[in-house]
Each structure stands twice: as C-alpha cells, then as structure tokens.
C-alpha cells in the first residue's frame, strides 16, 4: 500500500519522515499531483501561514488533487496546518481553503493565554474512535499553533482540548482525519495515532 506525504514547502517534513520510518511505513514524499493521484494513503502535514500554504498548494495544483482524492475516498491524515486548511476558510490572512470539511480556522483570543498555544496538552477523544484506539484516556500530545479548527458540524469533531476554552483538536469527514496536534512529535501516543491511521481499513 503506497503512502504519500505531501510536500508543498510548508515546513520541515523530517520529523514526519523519521516517525513513519520508525513505525515501518514505506512512503514517498512528493509535490507532484500525479503521484498524489496514485496514492493509497495521504499524509498532509504543514506548519506556517495558512494563506501562504494555500498559495503553495495552488501553484503546484495540489489543492485540486487533494479535493479529488478526498472525493475518491482515499484515506487522508492532516496534521497541524493540514488540520486547518482542509476547512473552508481560515482567519489567517482571510484565505479560502480546501473545503473538505465545513468550517473555519479561528485565531485563539488573547484571553486564552500565550499565543501560540505551545506544548503538551491532554486531549479528550471521541470514545471508541479508531484513530485513538489503544491510547490511555487523557493522553497528551504536542501542539504548536495560533489558530484552531472550528468545524461547522459538531459531528465532524473527534477530539477536544482545553486552552482557555475547549477547542476541537481533531476532525473527521469521510476518508479524512486531521489532528491539530503533531502525532510525529508526541512520543509513543503520537506514534500510536500514526499506526492507527496507517493500519485502518
């Protein structure tokens, strides 16, 4: 089964790569939409500015390729920025996004505390959800972000986290799951999330 990591120059892919190698997943890193079209699983990471990331995706025609793969039911795992720009829009630069999940990425208000929300935080997951199987309740994950996903439909949220208020930490719609936290930097709990994605269905 061919796993493809989308490279659109939005951040360093090294830690995603080492985590996948560690759990024994052969994968290809690509910015070529044709290769994405042949992928059987897609990992969609990203850090940085949401509006800029959308431009980088569009320049490489990866935006249409991702929409197409999602429509085709190919499993996709979004990470961090890849959990925000799968929504319809982001407050960051007011950009339109991929629209795979109804909703928008919103900025943390200053009363939440220091922004970015950076560090380890415990996550409440939807009971019995396959992405979190085998994890102790209240496991902690590593976050670095100033915006958070606000899906329009409550049913699309599969995990929650507390930072001044309860925000959505992971979403699911169709064949897409996405985590606001970094599973590749979240120790054994994060590796388990990656395994769950790569071994599902």
């Amino acid at each position, binding site marked *: 089964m061919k796993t493809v990591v989308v490279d659109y120059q939005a*951040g*360093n892919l*090294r*830690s995603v790569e*080492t*985590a996948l*190698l*560690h759990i024994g997943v052969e994968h290809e890193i690509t910015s070529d939409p044709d290769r994405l079209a042949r992928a059987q699983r897609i990992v969609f990471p990203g*850090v*940085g500015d949401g509006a800029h990331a959308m431009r980088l995706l569009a320049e490489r025609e990866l935006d249409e390729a991702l929409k197409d793969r999602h429509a085709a039911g190919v499993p996709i795992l979004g990470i961090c920025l890849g959990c925000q720009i799968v929504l319809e829009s982001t407050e960051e630069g007011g950009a339109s996004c991929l629209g795979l999940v109804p909703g928008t990425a919103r900025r943390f208000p200053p009363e939440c*505390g*220091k*922004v*970015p*929300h*950076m*560090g*380890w*935080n*415990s996550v409440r997951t939807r009971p019995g959800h396959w992405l979190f199987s085998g994890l*102790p*309740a*209240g*496991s*902690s994950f*590593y976050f*670095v972000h100033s915006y958070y996903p606000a899906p329009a439909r409550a049913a699309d949220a599969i995990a929650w986290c*507390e*930072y001044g208020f309860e925000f959505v930490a992971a979403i699911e719609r169709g064949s897409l799951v996405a985590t606001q936290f970094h599973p*590749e*930097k*979240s*120790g*054994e709990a*994060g*590796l388990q999330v990656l395994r769950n994605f790569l071994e599902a269905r």
Partner: protein
Amino acid sequence: MLQKRVIVCLDVRDGKTTKGVRFEGNIDIGDPVEMARAYYEQGVDELVFYDITASSEGRGIMIDVVRRVAEQIFIPFCVGGGIATIDDMRAVLLAGAEKVSVNSQAVRNPRIISEGARRFGNQAIVLGMDALADPQMPSGYRVVINGGRVKTDRDALEWAREAEQLGAGEIVVNSIDADGTRDGYELDVTRTIATGVGVPVVASGGAGVPAHLVDVFERGAADAALVASMVHYGDYTVAAIKDVIAAAGIPVRRVDQRPAV
C-alpha cells in the same frame, strides 16, 4: 490543560555529552543519543542539545548526533551553541531538530532572529539569554554573553521584548547567578521575563531538587524548566521529578498513564 514542560539539557562536545568541572575542564559523561533515548523513555517533554564544540569537524559530528536523535525520539528538541547563520539553522533543522537556539550571536546580530523566523517560522527560533542581577538596570537584570564572561549594555527584559518582536517563539532565561549552584532557579528574573513577554519562557540554571521546578512553575511563572546535572548523574529520573510536580497539583505530562477503568 496546557502542561508545564520538563526539558533536559545536554552539552555536547565532539559527539559526547560533557560537563564542565571546575579546575579540570570538561569530562565526558555519555553518549548523547543513548542519553536522549533514556530521557525520552522517562517521559521528558523536550530536549536541548548545546554544541560546545570548537572545531569544524565537531560541527559535522553534531549534525550526525542530531540526525540520530531524530531517528529515535519523537518529541520536540532544540539545538543551540554556535548558531551564527541561516545556513547553520537550516543544517540542524533539516537534520531533524524542531527548534534552534541563538544566544550571544543574537545580541551581536539581532537580525538572525528575524531572518530565521521569516525562513523557518517563529516556533523554530528560540532566544537563549544569560541574565545577571544588576540593580543599575531597569528590570534589575543585565544581559551577559559568551557564557557570562562579557557584560552587555542591554537590559534583560528590554532584550526579551525586542527578541519577541523580532520573531523569537520562545525565550530561555538562564540565570548566571543561579547556574551551577543547585540551590534553585532565580525566581525573580524568571517571573520578570515570563510575565513581561507573550511567548513561553523556559527557566534555566540552578535546579538541584524536584521542588525547585515546583517553585519556578508556581512562583516564577515559567512555562517550562530546564534540568541537567540533576538527571545526568542519576540523582533523579525525569519521571521522579514529574511525580513531585504532579503531587503539587501542577499539570504535567505523565507517560505511565493507564487507561481509565
């Protein structure tokens, strides 16, 4: 709830973890990759590697250490020491570090912060700052460089704020007064900076027992605390330190969590 981080710091010279010993120079205390792996298993939240190598061969060895650490541990880690250019930053980030730390170089050339943040993101750029108590300075602390040997004319709080404006995503405040004493962190300088900037602040220098971390989280307003000799010589494990922090009611990540019954 966001948890307080415990960060282990390793000084690396020519590929070995090392410790400065008074009158004796440096002694090697272990392999940094093996030590990193052990701390990872004990539940450390983050690691910092300071490259104290003087030679250019040593630089290459350091990149190799970073690469091997990245292959084995899956938590964020930062590399500092001798980072003077964008190319230096790129080399350690591409080898697998999440963050780079700049200290004396940033005082001499603050643009390294803004340029690094523009290329790699604010989250990747850490300012390390050595502070020395000095009643003549507005905040009560003066920035010193070159390991504390050279005084600058900069006020610690003013410099921290400037670095934040330039794009530093985190600030490590190392108290030269407390460093090496094992009597506890300098709470006042930590609180001064931690409450004066909008980015996370890591306390450094002086930790000797786990209660010192409790103090710096509760009274120093630190977001994270650096430890080194406390754990390097086997006095405490990271897990034991976290037991004490958790017992004080401070949110901290535990790796020994069991499923809810």
